[in-house]
């Protein structure tokens, strides 16, 4: 073995330790960078002697990525449902003194007051006010639910825009990673970026994906490609004329996207299934109240001795109001059950207040109050279920993330210890140069 070989070995050792230290500084610098995976230099002994850097690799468990993305999709779905239902609860304002229950109770009690005092113009005015207050509250709920649907739609569209941004970025990263990988260069940081994009994408919409050998990743949505190699396939929000012009998600080839999880799935579920169902329930009750009150009111006589007038206008919560004939005309409010009984007969008003006891809803099993209380309980149950599912999904995501951090996260203490090890190795290699140099010195200068 020649002496210069020893210098070669020492030089390679110096370079290798330097590379290792560079990687450690990279790790330390990115200890708090979101999505960063710690990197590791692979050193190997060379057949002719000495050491060399074989590869720099990020430490990553692809199975955990897969798990967390699947959990993310469920979390996004439940999160959207839970938020929407909590806002429904906020709009309902129950149990309380300003919710529909309280307003409806005051409406019927106003009729009871009128029945006690059918001669009075002020009790008639009070009935009109209580009726208007019920109509306004019912309409406000209708508007709140409808607004929530529209807001869900707006967020679906925003999510689509974000998804298209992400898939374009993933396609670009695919291209760059494939190129680096082809030339044998390190693409770890780009992979981290791509993984972070994939994490976010999975929150928005549940996707399937496949890692390719060339370093690219293919992403599919319900069997249709979102990213294939270096190409992204944009989603389009098409206005669906059959569904309030809400967004329907299609690909450029007009295939409708099949979405079964992720935030978009939750938003679409709220927009197209949950909220419309609750609106229909609200309308069932308000519609029944309008019809029942109008029937009883038309049978009774106003202070002016006239009957056959409606009290409410409209057919459900969307358009309920006080009938224009009665509105602002207290004498048209019917309190008497007979024409001759005007003004002292309050039996007509009593027949309207008695509607509060009648069980006319849900196949004649439920009064308005019972119907509404069970409606509210249903909302509460749905909301509390969605919240607890969201919470448990959150725990799952955090748990997997902890596992992922355990593999890929940077631990400063570990890096410091390794830094010292490499530093010592570097010092030793430097000493080696010195020793070999001394040997050469002995050989050249002392041998003469």
């Amino acid at each position: 073995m020649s002496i210069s070989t020893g210098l070669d070995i020492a030089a390679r050792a110096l370079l290798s330790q330097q590379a290792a230290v560079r990687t450690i500084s990279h790790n330390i610098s990115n200890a708090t960078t979101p999505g960063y995976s710690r990197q590791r230099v692979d050193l190997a002994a060379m057949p002719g002697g000495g050491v060399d850097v074989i590869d720099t690799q990020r430490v990553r468990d692809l199975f955990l990525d897969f798990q967390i993305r699947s959990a993310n999709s469920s979390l996004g779905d439940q999160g959207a449902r839970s938020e929407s239902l909590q806002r429904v609860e906020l709009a309902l304002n129950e149990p309380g003194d300003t919710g529909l229950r309280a307003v409806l109770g005051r409406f019927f009690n106003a009729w009871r007051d009128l029945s006690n005092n059918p001669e009075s113009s002020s009790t008639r005015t009070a009935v009109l006010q209580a009726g208007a207050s019920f109509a306004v509250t019912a309409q406000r709920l209708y508007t709140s639910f409808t607004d929530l649907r529209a807001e869900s739609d707006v967020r679906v569209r925003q999510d689509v825009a974000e998804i298209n941004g992400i898939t374009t970025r993933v396609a670009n990263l695919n291209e760059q990673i494939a190129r680096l990988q082809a030339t044998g260069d390190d693409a770890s940081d780009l992979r981290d970026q791509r993984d972070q994009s994939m994490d976010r994408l999975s929150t928005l919409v549940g996707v399937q994906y496949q890692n390719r050998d060339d370093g690219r990743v293919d992403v599919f949505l319900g069997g249709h490609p979102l990213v294939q190699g270096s190409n992204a396939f944009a989603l389009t929000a098409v206005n669906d004329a059959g569904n309030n012009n809400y967004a329907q998600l299609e690909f450029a080839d007009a295939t409708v996207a099949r979405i079964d999880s992720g935030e978009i799935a939750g938003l679409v579920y709220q927009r197209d299934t949950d909220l419309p169902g609750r609106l229909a329930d609200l309308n069932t009750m308000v519609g029944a109240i309008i019809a029942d009150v109008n029937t009883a009111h038309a049978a009774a006589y106003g202070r002016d001795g006239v009957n056959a007038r409606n009290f409410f206008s409209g057919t459900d919560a969307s358009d309920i109001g006080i009938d224009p004939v009665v509105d602002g005309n207290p004498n048209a409010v019917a309190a008497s059950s007979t024409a001759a009984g005007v003004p002292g007969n309050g039996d007509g008003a009593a027949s309207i207040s008695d509607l509060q006891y009648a069980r006319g809803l849900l196949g004649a099993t439920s009064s308005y109050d019972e119907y509404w209380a069970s409606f509210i309980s249903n909302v509460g149950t749905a909301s509390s279920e969605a919240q607890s599912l969201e919470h448990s999904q959150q725990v799952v995501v955090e748990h997997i993330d902890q596992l992922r951090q355990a593999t890929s996260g940077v631990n400063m203490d570990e890096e410091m210890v390794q830094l010292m090890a490499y530093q010592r190795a570097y010092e030793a290699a430097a000493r080696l140069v010195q020793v070999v140099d001394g040997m050469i010195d002995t050989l050249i200068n002392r041998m003469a």
Partner: protein
Amino acid sequence: MRVSNNSITARLLQQVQDSRARLAHVQEQTGSGKKVNRPSDDPAATGRIMTMNTELELNEQYARNSNTALSDLTVSEASLSNLADVLQRASELAVQGSNGALDGSARQQIALEVSQLVTQAIALGNTRSAGRYIFAGQKTDTQPFVPDSVANPTVVTYAGDTNGVYREVSQGERLNTNITGDRTFPGVIADLISLRDHLRANDANALQTDADAMGTRLDETLELRSEVGAKMNRVQTGITRLEDEHTMLLTLVSNEQDVDLAQSIVELQARETTLQAALGAAGRALNLSLLEFLR
């Protein structure tokens, strides 16, 4: 398990946030005094609270109705009581007038007082309460007893009807609270008028009969008054029952809805302590680093 710096921070943050969220929950309960602030806090309790709140409001309405009924009945009772006084006096005067020793001019004097009693009886029949003629049946805006002459009535017609006025004093229970003027009043007024006329006509024999008639009318009126009195008792009992129910419902609603303040304050303190502990742990854990020991 390896622990990365990121996961230490993330976990500590999570712990602190969880502690804060739990604290906020108890704070909301303590602040509002309610453990059910929205349906999802307890869906079943929410349903029960709503049903009981409606029952409470109905209870208050029935109490209001009962008080209206009570005031209707009180006014009727007072009027009938006054009518009984009128008849009592008329009865005395009839007996006095039927005394054979009396001469015509003395009977004329008595007739003057009886004439006043006729006017009083008509006025009592036309009693109004809160703007309503209470003895007019449902024709509460029509004066029920209209004399042919105000100064010297000879015929008084009843212009009201025979329909009842009802108050809902509990669910489905409608109590009739009026006495229609067709009962007792027309007979009383007619008999008073004939008493007056017999006094004027100095008809001692007829006055004998009138004295008996006055006694019968007085009994009738007192009977009517006790009918009203019985109804008042019934309403009064109902009001007591409604008040008991009200107290019970308030307790039930409160049980479902209100927080036990002592308990929630203790819990509040416990959670504050937990949060402080979490913050303290965070402060210490974040300071732990090998760098502290490498000099």
